[in-house]
């Protein structure tokens, strides 16, 4: 203790001590984040700090887009205008059919006294940037909890589902793409109604646990099945690109190309509809039936 250096040369704790402190802090954070999800408040606070930096990093790209838009040639604008006009015509025709179908559907639902689904509200958002993390497929959009975005909401563009909101900050939200390894999407084959779960596989999707003789062909369209209560039914998800059937395995290996171009567009829609999550029936029904069986047994014994 008496060999303390004079305050002039005091450098704080030794480098190794400092390293040990920060390494253990980082390991603690990682465990909290990966196992218990306790670090979300810290992450939210850091996200607010990092937000201006991210906007600043986006500004050269925005500037470039603005300049490119300014110098867009008239012919390309004309061409785009023509395609857009034809698309509008087609869309209006589809809308008319859709309205007729909707009214018919509503009437039949009323006839069946089925619960009417709320018309789905959507929120327009723009992709700020895609994460630099090479281990996962995520994009960050410019709407957050201040704009009533919450975790779990599906995200789509005009061609299909691109993913699901997995983390929400005040002014932005993280969307895990359907091609992420940890993202599973319940799907259904349009042609024959076969249900399955598509898992992300980096750039493509993998339709797992389908029997080797399952009726799936190249080019089959997969849409959301809607039985999860999160995705509305019928949104395009992927198209089957390759089917490998090997007698050595019980399951077929089915690769699918995502339908939506998550890496091409910047504008996306977040579906704000209320998710009608009802608990799976087995969770409550089985113990109850067991109890009733036990009661019945007890009564018999009496």
């Amino acid at each position, binding site marked *: 203790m008496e060999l303390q250096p004079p305050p002039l040369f005091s*450098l704080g704790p030794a*480098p190794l001590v*400092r*390293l040990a402190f*920060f*390494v253990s*802090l*980082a*390991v*603690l*954070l*990682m465990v*909290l*984040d*990966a196992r218990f999800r306790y*670090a979300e408040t*810290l*992450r939210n606070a*850091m*996200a607010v*700090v*990092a937000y201006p*930096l*991210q906007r*600043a*990093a*986006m500004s*050269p*790209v925005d500037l470039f887009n603005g300049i490119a838009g300014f110098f867009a040639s008239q012919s390309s604008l004309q061409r785009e205008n023509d395609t857009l006009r034809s698309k509008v015509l087609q869309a209006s025709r589809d809308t008319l059919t859709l309205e007729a179908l909707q009214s018919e559907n509503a009437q039949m639902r009323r006839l069946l006294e089925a619960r009417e689904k709320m018309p789905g509200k959507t929120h327009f958002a723009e992709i*700020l*940037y*895609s*994460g*630099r*993390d*090479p*281990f*996962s*497929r*995520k994009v*960050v959009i410019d709407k957050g909890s201040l704009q009533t975005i919450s975790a779990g909401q599906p995200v789509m563009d005009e061609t299909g589902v691109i993913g699901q909101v997995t*983390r929400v900050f005040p002014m932005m939200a*993280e969307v895990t793409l359907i091609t992420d*390894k*940890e993202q599973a999407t319940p799907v259904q084959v349009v042609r024959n109604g076969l249900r399955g779960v598509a898992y992300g596989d*980096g*750039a493509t999707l993998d339709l797992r646990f389908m029997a080797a003789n399952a009726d799936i062909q190249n080019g089959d369209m997969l849409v959301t099945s809607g039985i999860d209560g999160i995705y509305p039914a019928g949104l395009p998800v992927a198209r089957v690109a390759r089917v490998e059937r090997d007698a050595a395995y019980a399951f077929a290996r089915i690769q699918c190309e995502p339908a939506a171009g998550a*890496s091409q567009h910047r504008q996306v829609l977040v579906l704000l509809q209320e998710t009608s999550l009802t608990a799976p029936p087995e969770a409550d029904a089985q113990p109850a039936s067991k109890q009733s069986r036990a009661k019945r047994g007890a009564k018999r014994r009496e």
Partner: protein
Amino acid sequence: MRFEARPQRILLPVSGFFMTFTILCALLFNLLPWRDITGVPDLLALVLVFWGVRQPRKVSVGVAWGLGLIMDVSNGALLGQHALAYAILAFAANALSRRLLWFPQWPQALHVLLMLLGCQLIMLTVRMAAGSPFPGVLYFLGSFICAGLWPLTSMLLLAPQRRPESVDENRPI
């Protein structure tokens, strides 16, 4: 190899503003919207190594840890992954600071390459332990690009300290 033959130049004291500015620039470069490109150089790690070697008292483990946390949050990565890797990187840079500057530029770049590869290896280990897939060999390309940029980086970042202290109008050269 003879080290004493090279003349050493006495540098001006570093300006804290310039250091902050360069670190901020590297951070902004890292936050640019890199779409699905693998092998983008991690300039923030390079700048951290540079200042960790040149100014070990100012840029040390704590600063690197905080910057790593910002990277984690803005990338949506596992919280603490970059923080851990950068903290160890800064420690290595501080520990090598007395030795590294005796070498010429390219051997210095080799040292830097090893440090950056170690940093990426730590992140890879952490993520694979957390259950992520291997992102491919191209993931390590960024470190090689960064090491190739080392001579340029040290020239640019040292330029403000190489100015003459007082400009003498009457001096012949």
